């Protein structure tokens, strides 16, 4: 009997050891899997830095693209990117925030709301290149906006709209009910509640969404290629009031343009390795921009969590 118990205990111990081994094994596997991601990121950044940083001189930022790799720069690309982002923000920020406010604060439970909600979650899954086709068919040809900064900005605005709407809703949802009830009790109308209380309190969250959306938009290549942005632009969009004859206030909106990702694409697809160095340098700048924006968003979220206690 005793021998039987002993062997049974030994068997159980073996079983436990085996189970624990699996546990440890999986812990190691988890770390390894994470390392695949982290090391890829590290390889990407170091590779880019080694190839690109020597090219990051002042001239690189102030020269136009050129047929000779050593003279080529990203002036038209970064100016184009910033202008396109301005247009995108101009449309996506108000429309996205108002849309989010409507869905979170005003919408009644009816079929219109359901359609809008399903629609937004589906739009978030539409590949970005399809937005490019939409813009090509609608903005460029049907509305006659041409292959311009305006078309590109509108396209990217539509692309990031779901992101802005969803984060706006989340930010509003996090504001407790008693804030609204208190304001209503003082006789505020619904818009006064939204405008004077909910928007200010939700601002950090809303801004986070806007910044994440813009970071996404600045790196998007496919939709902008699809509307037919040029890859070789050796001039800047007209500055309002400058030039001969003087450019109108909104002429730059209709100017041909290029953006950072397209410039990188153009340089990457050339066989000459000297251009690949330019691509690395431009990628470095672009990553710096997008990750900088993402870091800002993370910091904002962190601050918001720390400072607000309801």
């Amino acid at each position, binding site marked *: 009997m005793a021998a039987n118990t002993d062997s049974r205990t030994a068997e159980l111990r073996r079983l436990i050891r085996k189970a624990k081994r699996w546990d440890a094994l999986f812990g190691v596997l988890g770390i390894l899997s994470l390392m695949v*991601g982290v090391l890829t990121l590290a390889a990407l950044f170091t590779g880019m830095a080694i190839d690109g940083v020597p090219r990051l001189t002042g001239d690189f930022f102030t020269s136009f693209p050129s047929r000779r790799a050593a003279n080529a720069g990203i002036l038209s690309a970064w100016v184009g990117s910033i202008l396109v982002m301005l247009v995108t923000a101009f449309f996506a920020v108000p429309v996205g925030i108002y849309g989010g406010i409507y869905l979170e604060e005003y919408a009644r439970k009816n079929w219109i709301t359901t359609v809008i909600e399903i629609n937004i979650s589906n739009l978030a899954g539409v590949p970005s290149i399809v937005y490019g086709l939409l813009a090509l068919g609608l903005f460029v040809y049907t509305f006659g906006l041409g292959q311009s900064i305006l078309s590109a900005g509108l396209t990217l605005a*539509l692309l990031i709209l779901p992101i802005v709407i969803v984060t706006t809703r989340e930010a509003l949802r996090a504001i407790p009910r008693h804030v609204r009830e208190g304001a209503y009790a003082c006789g505020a109308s619904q818009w006064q509640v939204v405008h004077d209380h909910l928007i200010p309190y939700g601002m950090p969250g809303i801004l986070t969404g806007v910044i994440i959306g813009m970071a996404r938009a600045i790196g998007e290549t496919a939709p902008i290629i699809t509307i037919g942005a040029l890859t070789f632009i050796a001039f800047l969009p007209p500055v309002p009031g400058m030039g001969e004859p003087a450019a109108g206030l909104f002429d730059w909106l209709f100017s041909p343009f290029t953006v950072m990702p397209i410039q990188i694409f153009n340089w990457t697809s050339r066989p000459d390795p000297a251009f690949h160095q330019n*691509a690395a340098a431009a990628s470095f700048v672009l990553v710096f921009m997008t990750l900088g924006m993402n870091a800002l968003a993370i910091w904002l979220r962190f601050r918001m969590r720390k400072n607000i206690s309801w």
Partner: protein
Amino acid sequence: MADPTLTGDARLAQLAQAKVRRKRREKVIEMVLLLAACVSVFTTVGIVYVLLRESLDFFSHVPLWDFLTDSQWTPLFSDAHFGITVLLSGTLTSSAVALCIAIPLGTIIAIYLSEFAGHKTRETLKPTLELLSGVPTIIYGYFALLFVTPLLQKIFPELPGFNVLSAGLVMGIMIIPYVSSLSEDAMRAVPMSLREGSYAMGATRFQTAVKVVVPAAVSGIASAYILGVSRAVGETMILAVAAGMQPNLTFNPMEPAATITSYIVQVALGDLPHGSVGYQTIFAAGLTLMVITLGFNLLGHWMRRRFREAY
């Protein structure tokens, strides 16, 4: 505006008028907000309209049957063939390679972060991992073409400079955060009582994770996979840069191939006249892409609903 000298009925009438004005203003504001919310619906309508309009034109030149069954894709040649299967094979192969990376790694990472890692590890590693999805895809394309391909060529010397394998691998790594974040959220939503019950029975963390938490979170994990699939199918720039853009009916990832998305890029880079059949092909290709991703999205919704466990 409120004249203090008014008293009695006059004052009441004035207040009533102010109330009406305020109500009217509120109504107008609500309408404006509704309009903003509807922009997303207009976007969808616009997408469907544009894709259908150009595709219908295209299918009046090219029979649908040929589009689906032809085994050649040569829309710009004089002997034009429009077999979407050629592009589909590229899309399928590259997505398959990507998912072979993203799904196992993403799942393991999700389980690790949700069940094994301590609070500190999770809070530092998760944002780092999410940086992966913040890097613009064109930069991954550059990375695949100029870093991963030469690396792979050391292992497989006969690998061509443009190939689906390296593009797919990099795409897989890019998709990891999409899969792992959503899966992890699903696993963390599993109530603690289930885990505690399992631990109380003497299960290890691994046993609890695999036999209790994962089955309870399966609907969320499945929809994470589906999001990964639709990301892979719609990914453009990595493939356009690193996989070459020549149409190639093959399921071998060691060869170059064009996908639906990279074909659209290729045409957009050239100078096709608006309204030509060549121009319309990209809308037909886009429609195909849209149908595929929409199918996956609907499948994801359905799975979330069908297998949702309510606690």
